[in-house]
Structure formats: C-alpha cells, structure tokens
C-alpha cells in the first residue's frame, strides 16, 4: 500500500495526515481528525450530509478523494463554534425545533451559514434551493427553512 502524506488546513489549523489512495476526505475528517459533525449517510453524493466548506464553497466530503484535498482549506461545523452568525442559526434551529434526530443538522446549518454569508436576507425559495441537495428524513424541511429565514432577518 502506498500511503501519501497530505497537508490540509482544517478549521484554520495546518495538519498533515497519511492517507491511503482510496481514502475520502470524509474518512480523514472523521477518523483521523475526529470531526464528527461530518456525517456519512449515503456515501455516494446523494444526501448532502457530509457537506463541508472547501475554500469557502460547500462540497460533499464523501466524493472528494483525500489526496485531492491537499493544500485546500476545509471548514467543518466545529470550526464555526465561535462564529456569531452560526450561533444565530443554531439559536433559531433550537427556537424552531428544526432538528429531530439531528443527523442532517450540521449539513443544514453549514448550507444556511454559507447562504447567509452571501445574502443577508434570502427568500424562502432561495433557502429551499440552497438546501435542495441536503436531505432530512424527519422534519419535512419547513422548520429548517424557517430557522434559516429568521436567522437571516435577525442579523
């Protein structure tokens, strides 16, 4: 097995990790670095629950080979722990009870955060489009949409 040394900046910290050629960014984030907010559900790019920000853009960490993440900046929900906008979003998620099982919540909050960073007061349609690639099997989405909507208005 040919392991490769890959340098990745995760949540603002430069890290080095030995990866196998078939490791996914998802594996590295969860297993090597312990960022468990990044969830694996489908593992094939369909559900959006492994969403992280790569160089500021939402991507699916299950579809990214770990060796391709080298020299990129990755942000997971853990990296936004002290972010004021993320706190507002999370407060609104609590307010609206927008999490039931909670498994999709990190990905939903990241998509909401990314949207609100680009557009302060998005419409509900824009929110729907932003989370259109992120599946929730409990809430029916409306509480999530309302939470992101209100977090935007509260800014």
């Amino acid at each position, binding site marked *: 097995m040919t392991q490769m040394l890959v340098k990745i900046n995760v949540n603002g910290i430069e890290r080095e990790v030995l990866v196998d050629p078939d490791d996914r960014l998802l594996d590295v984030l969860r297993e090597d670095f312990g960022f468990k907010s990044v969830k694996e559900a489908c*593992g094939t790019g369909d559900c959006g629950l492994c969403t992280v920000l790569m160089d500021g853009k939402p991507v699916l960490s299950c579809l*990214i080979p770990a060796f391709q993440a080298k020299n990129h900046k990755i942000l997971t929900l853990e990296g936004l722990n002290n972010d004021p906008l993320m706190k507002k979003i999370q407060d609104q998620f609590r307010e609206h009870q927008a999490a039931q099982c909670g498994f999709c919540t990190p990905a939903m909050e990241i998509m909401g955060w990314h949207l609100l960073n680009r557009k302060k007061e998005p419409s509900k349609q824009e929110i729907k489009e932003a989370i*259109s*690639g*992120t599946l929730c099997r409990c809430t029916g989405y409306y509480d999530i949409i309302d939470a992101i909507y209100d977090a935007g208005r509260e800014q």
Partner: protein
Amino acid sequence: MEQPLLNRSEMIILQPSSLKESLKVLNENPDAEIMANASDLWPRIRNGEVRPKKILDISGLTNELSYVKKDGNVIKIGALVTVSQLEGESFVKEKRFSAFVDLISKFGSPQIRNVATVGGNVCAASSSEDFIPLFLALNAKVKLSSVDGERYMSIEKFLAGKRKLNRRPNEILTEISFEDPGTGYGSAFEKVGRRNTLIINLVNLAVVGKIAKGKIEDIRIAANRVKGKIPERAKATEEFLKGRELNEETLSGAKKVFEEELILTDDVRASATYRKALLITMLERLIKKIGGVQ
C-alpha cells in the same frame, strides 16, 4: 491483457503540478485514468465499477484549465471550469445562451455544482450528462492536448459510445469551444427526472436556433438519447424544421418526424414510450420558447 486492480488501496496516484508535466506523465503512463474533480469517477472507483491501477489527478491544474474566454467569435471553456463557476460567467447571462441557465439550475445539487467540471461531464460520455446535448446543439469542439501537440475534434466525433471517447491514450481533453451563434439566435434546455435536485435525467433536450419573423431559419436539436445510448443530434427533425414557418402545422409535422427518428429502449428508470412522450412534448415547448411564442 493485464488483470484489473482488485484492491483499490493499491492505486498509484500521479499528481503533476502543471499541464506540461501531466501530458508527459500521461505519455509515460497511458493506462492511467484521468481524474478531474472526481464527482463522477470517485463513486465508481469506490463501488468497484472502475478499477484503475493508476490515476492521473489533474484537479490541481486550475491555474491553466479554469478559464472562460472569448476569442474572436469563439467561446472557450477550460476543462476544469466547474458548473458553479460557469454560472457566474457573463456570456451565460446573455439571452441567446439561456439554455445554460436552464441547465445549471437543475444540475446535480449546489454542492455537486461546486466540484463537477464541464470537461468531466463531457468525458463521462453517458446519456445522464446534461452538458453533452447542449454542446452538440452548439456544434462544440473539444481540444485534445498531448506531448505531440494539440488537435481539435467535433464533440460529435469525440463521443464514440457509452463511456467511450475518441481519445488517444496520451491525450487530455483541455478545452471545449463553440462559435457564438450571434444575436437573433436563442437556446433552451430542459430535463425531466423524478425530482428537481440530484436527479439522473430520464430525458434531456437542448435546442439552439434562429427563429425570426415567425420563420425557422436555423435549428439544432440534441437529446440525451436519439438512436443509441449516448446523446445525439436529431438531424431528421432539424432538416424538417429548417426554413418552415413556426406554426401549429409545422410543429405537429416536426413532432411526427421526431417520433419516427427516436429509437429508444426501455430500462430500469423509464419505458421507451414514456421517454418518447416527454421528448416530443419538450421539443414543442423549447421551439416555442426560442420563437418567443407564449
């Protein structure tokens, strides 16, 4: 013939830092699988459908292959331009290219659009790739680069069959280009699947044409399937439509020609009958859209 690799953790990853270096590495390793941002290839490697021994990772060549530029009358798109990058390009916002807007808004999901590349979509060479029909309707060309130089080929010729490309083993697709058809032209794209986001299309259809004063001066039509398993032009329907007045008689005639031209087969996702009905309805809708009728 060499046996395929059974253990994917034994793959050899080649990551050159420039296009020139990549072409040299590919020339020395013509058996390497070329990987851009991997959104199509990676799941197929992970599930064992593709078992490459070597991967040539060109995703780092964004400095060289992520451009969109207009050279005279020709629009050139670097192979590594992502779908979301294309969305922000100025030419896409011009009315005659509204097919790009139609296509991009329905492409994958927001997360997929940030990684999926235009070159990768073309090279995946299957009926589920949305850019192929549009590029076919735009008479696009691909640029193939190798240590021996560069050559251009029509996208029609480049697509040799399902997941098959007319590419020499030492060549990389580096650019897709097409002539700006100019003002007076319009374009439209539509696809149908089971939901709006994250679908594999059942059918898609791209139409580029010039309809002036109610007359169809020029029209090019491409669907994800016409006769075979990959996207193709519907040339009989195009020939029927060219030069005719845009009216109900022309449209019903075109729908009949299109129906005869379509040789589809059933598969797990939809029946041929359903696909045909969709495409025929979409054809009328897209022609009317370009013609500015309702």
